[in-house]
């Protein structure tokens, strides 16, 4: 049973990734990328890495994808954008990713109904992860925080002149 779910989720992930790299429109690709990340999150859950599954959905499929959507929307302006959004809302564009996401939802429902223990590996719960993260890996956490700070400063420095220009009426 677990293996069937695992193969099904893997098929969804592979299909979504192939569709992602072959889409001509960036927003269509983004839909399939979100589907691919969600299915990898379900695979994490099936493998017993519950904490990583939650982080995958929240950070990858949530925060990073919002960044992508924001930039794609920022780079399109005017009448062209309206025509594009009309085209994006055609059912043929979003019906296939929605169906595949429904498959993932049904899988999660099956797991929950069966008692929530459909792992195909060992369960590593978040308590073990936390103890190891702030024990032997403390230096890595500090390095990750330095990396995030560098990323923040870099993104701010790169985006500042553009934000200054696009701000309405602002010249400071």
């Amino acid at each position: 049973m677990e293996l069937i779910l695992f193969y099904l989720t893997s098929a969804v992930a592979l299909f979504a990734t192939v569709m992602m790299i072959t889409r001509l429109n960036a927003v269509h690709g983004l839909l399939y990328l979100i589907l691919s990340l969600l299915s990898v999150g379900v695979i994490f859950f099936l493998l017993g890495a519950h904490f990583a599954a939650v982080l995958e959905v929240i950070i990858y499929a949530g925060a990073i994808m919002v960044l992508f959507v924001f930039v794609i929307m920022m780079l399109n302006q005017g009448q062209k954008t309206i025509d594009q959004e009309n085209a994006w809302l055609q059912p043929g564009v979003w019906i296939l990713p929605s169906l595949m996401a429904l498959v993932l939802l049904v899988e999660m429902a099956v797991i929950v109904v069966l008692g929530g223990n459909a792992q195909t590996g060992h369960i590593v719960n978040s308590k073990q992860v936390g103890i190891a993260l702030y024990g032997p890996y403390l230096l890595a956490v500090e390095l990750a925080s330095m990396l995030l700070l560098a990323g923040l400063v870099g993104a701010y420095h790169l985006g500042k002149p553009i934000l200054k220009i696009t701000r309405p009426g602002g010249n400071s």
Partner: protein
Amino acid sequence: MEFGLLLSAVLFVLGLIGVMVRRNLIMILMSLEVMLNATGLAFIVAGSRWGQADGQIMFLLILTLAAAEVGVGLGLVLQIFHRFHTLDADSVNEMQG
């Protein structure tokens, strides 16, 4: 667990193909995300196989790296679009390298 590692390898290769074939800068960044995600999947599979927490910690670090990379990468994309008015990676070859 061989299947998990196989899936991770195939996802990584798909991302690599995306980086090499596509010329849209946003699509290249999205393919990079797929590659980073595939490496994270490999770590999770290994950690799940041996029941150790180290796999998930490496996944956390990869997640941090992906977040920082996407922030700086999208900033660069904004700069390139602002200067060249295109998202084509081939049009930004002023260095003639």
